[in-house]
């Protein structure tokens, strides 16, 4: 019934996994989704690429690495992507939205993902990056590489959603093995992408269209956080929203109370009722500040039964509606080539951030401490100013 629309949307949305972790996440998407968006795996490691189920595979940096991976060197990752920049651009030609999925910390993910984001952006696509930050047990070197990578990713993507794996680990319980922790990180990544993709491609009780998403992306400042909750059975709506609200990824809800821009995606089967959507939204509104800008959408997936999921993307700042060119967008414009005209103002905004409140999430503003061994206390990076970590707005 909605076949035509669906196929249109899938052809224009791409999900790219960059590096080993990104490819794993894309792989788990391939296993779970039918008729999903096109899945692309990009890696320097030939062997890892061979095992992926992504529809498109691209090996980068053949000359540099001979298909053997980067050995954790982010510079090699970056140079590899630079070498194949034209190929990357070709890959994204005609796409409206590209999800760049990566696990920061390693060589390819950290080094190449920002270049991949830039390639997608320069071909005119909107870029949403999902990036996980390493677990603590992965060591300090990977953590500092990851922070650097995240900063670079912010320069090239419209929205960067950071997922600190360590917080996920906290929720997995003390008995979780490393493998379980990694698998859960992959699952969260894929569900985040899935929720936004569904929102754009499937009709629901309340629609959230591409134009709204673009506006949210443009007005939200800095790095965003993300959480996901799922519920089954008769209390599915309450369970899902509580799980999302109390996710350790949102500091048990603390981050949400301090966010100015919030995007909510509610996914359910055809059995989801209006009342359930309403109760979810009431719960979310109760947990957020009155001033925050909340955008929500629902999507129905007929293959879902008895299950509701809630996805929240929270950004610290709302910069207000800058140019009123949002009006130019409506759903029908997805098909048209408006992306080219929208690109310049978007880029300009990124570069003039100095007077705007900027990027907020642990570990990114380190100033003079960016090259020295960080002071970590209780997995908090003390080199980041306290006011940033505590989300305190300072009079300028």
């Amino acid at each position: 019934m909605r076949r035509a629309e669906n196929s249109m949307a899938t052809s224009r949305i791409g999900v790219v996994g960059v590096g080993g972790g990104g490819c794993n996440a894309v792989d788990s998407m391939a296993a779970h989704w039918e008729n999903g968006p096109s899945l692309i795996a990009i890696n320097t490691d030939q062997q890892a690429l061979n095992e992926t189920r992504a529809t498109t595979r691209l090996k980068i940096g053949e000359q540099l690495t001979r298909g053997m991976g980067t050995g954790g060197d982010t510079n090699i990752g970056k140079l590899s992507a630079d070498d194949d920049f034209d190929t990357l651009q070709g890959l994204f030609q005609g796409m409206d939205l590209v999800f760049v999925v990566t696990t920061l910390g390693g060589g390819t993910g950290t080094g190449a993902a920002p270049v991949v984001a830039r390639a997608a952006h320069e071909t005119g696509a909107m870029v949403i990056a999902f990036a996980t930050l390493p677990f603590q047990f992965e060591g300090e070197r990977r953590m500092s590489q990851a922070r650097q990578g995240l900063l670079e990713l912010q320069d090239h993507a419209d929205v960067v959603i950071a997922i600190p794996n360590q917080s996920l680990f906290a929720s997995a319980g003390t008995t979780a093995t490393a493998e379980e922790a990694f698998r859960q990180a992959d699952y969260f990544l894929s569900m985040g992408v899935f929720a936004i993709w569904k929102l754009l491609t499937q009709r629901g009780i309340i629609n959230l269209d591409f134009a709204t998403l673009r506006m949210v992306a443009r007005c939200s400042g800095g790095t965003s956080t993300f959480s996901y909750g799922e519920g089954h059975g008769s209390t599915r709506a309450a369970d899902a929203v509580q799980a999302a609200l109390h996710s350790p990824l949102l500091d048990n809800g603390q981050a949400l109370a301090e966010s100015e821009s919030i995007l909510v995606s509610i996914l359910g089967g055809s059995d989801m009722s209006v009342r359930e959507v309403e109760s979810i939204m009431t719960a979310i509104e109760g947990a957020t500040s009155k001033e925050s800008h909340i955008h929500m959408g629902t999507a129905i997936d007929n293959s879902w039964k008895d299950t509701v999921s809630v996805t929240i993307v929270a950004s610290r700042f709302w910069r207000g509606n800058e140019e009123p060119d949002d009006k130019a967008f409506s759903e029908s414009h997805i098909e048209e080539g408006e992306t080219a005209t929208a690109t310049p103002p978007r880029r300009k905004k990124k570069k003039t951030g100095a007077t705007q409140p900027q990027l907020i999430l642990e570990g990114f503003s380190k100033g003079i401490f960016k090259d020295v061994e960080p002071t970590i206390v209780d997995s908090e990076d003390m080199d980041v100013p306290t006011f940033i970590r505590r989300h305190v707005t300072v009079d300028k």
Partner: protein
Amino acid sequence: MGLAPIVALEIGTSKVVALVGELREDNHIVITGMGEHASAGVRKGEMVDFENARICVKEALGAAEETAQVAIHQVHLALSGGSIQSLVNRGTIPITHPEEGVTQDDVDQVTELARSVNLPPDRQILHSIGQIFYVDGDRVARPEHFECATLALDMLILHAQNSHIRNTVRLLRNDMNLDVADTAFGGLCSALAVLTPEQKEGGVLVIDLGGGTTTYTAYAAGIFGAAGAYAIGGDHVTNDIALAFNIPRSQAEQLKRDRGSAIAEDTTPNQRITLPAEVGYPGRNVSLAGLHTVIHLRMTELFQLILRDIERKGISHQIGAGIVLTGGGAQMKGLIKLAERVFRAPCMVGRPVGFSGLATATERPECSTAAGLLRYAFKNATVARRRRRFTDVLRGIFGT
């Protein structure tokens, strides 16, 4: 007294200080020489650029040699890196000859046992300090001649990452031909410099606020109770300010020194400070309340970390004599008030006591560590002279 002058060297994050001191009667120390040089190549209390650090140390020592009119071949070194931590280890032995009472041999044995702890391979013991003996579970300061079945000793072990110590010592020994006579924890030195015996007896917490690190030392009932360090210091405050207002570091540092306060509410709302233009940066003005908020949050957090540590060690309610702040950061406006609030105890700024000589060295909280290191070194030298006694197990152990 016949003891040779001693040279104390502190290679800090913001400055290198070298003091030359002589011991007089009543353990009074006269500072006869001093050299100071802005530090380069040190971050968070640990050397990162050896060549620059070497030049700074050379300058400071040169100035100290000149003022004291001595040639320096040997130094005592203060260590304040953020890797320093403390733990208490208890050694217990049975007394097999109860009728004789505790002998010197028993004390030696329990001391050795209490001192032996298993540390990870990358860490080494910096100090092991005897706290208190237990004879059949009762606390005693001197256990000799007590009749009992068991003797125990609590030993406070201060340990640090060994690469940091090794690198610094290697630089001084190999590249500068200096003999490193001993090393000591900077926080302990500061406490020795600024505290009176009454304060130690009443229970006190000394916090030394340095450029790159903050160290703390707590005494409860005259016993050295806990110590530690955080690689958080004045540089962090400066960096916070620079990032908050998007201004260069030099301006942020100036702003911190001239207008900074750790208490936010005393500020008149809407008051603004004008910053002059600098190369590459236009002139601008910033909110004074904002500045104070940034500093307040950072310093509150730091104090809370220390409070939590001493709470965990069970001595937070034993600091009757209150808090003593020292080090360069202690001069921040509003800091005393803030410390009183966080620790709920009286607070003061501590300066070296029982020193005379060069006024610049004896009156400034920045010199507490180096001055205290002199006291530590003289104490050890006198103890060594009187023959070692086991209730004075205060000594630094340095093994390369």
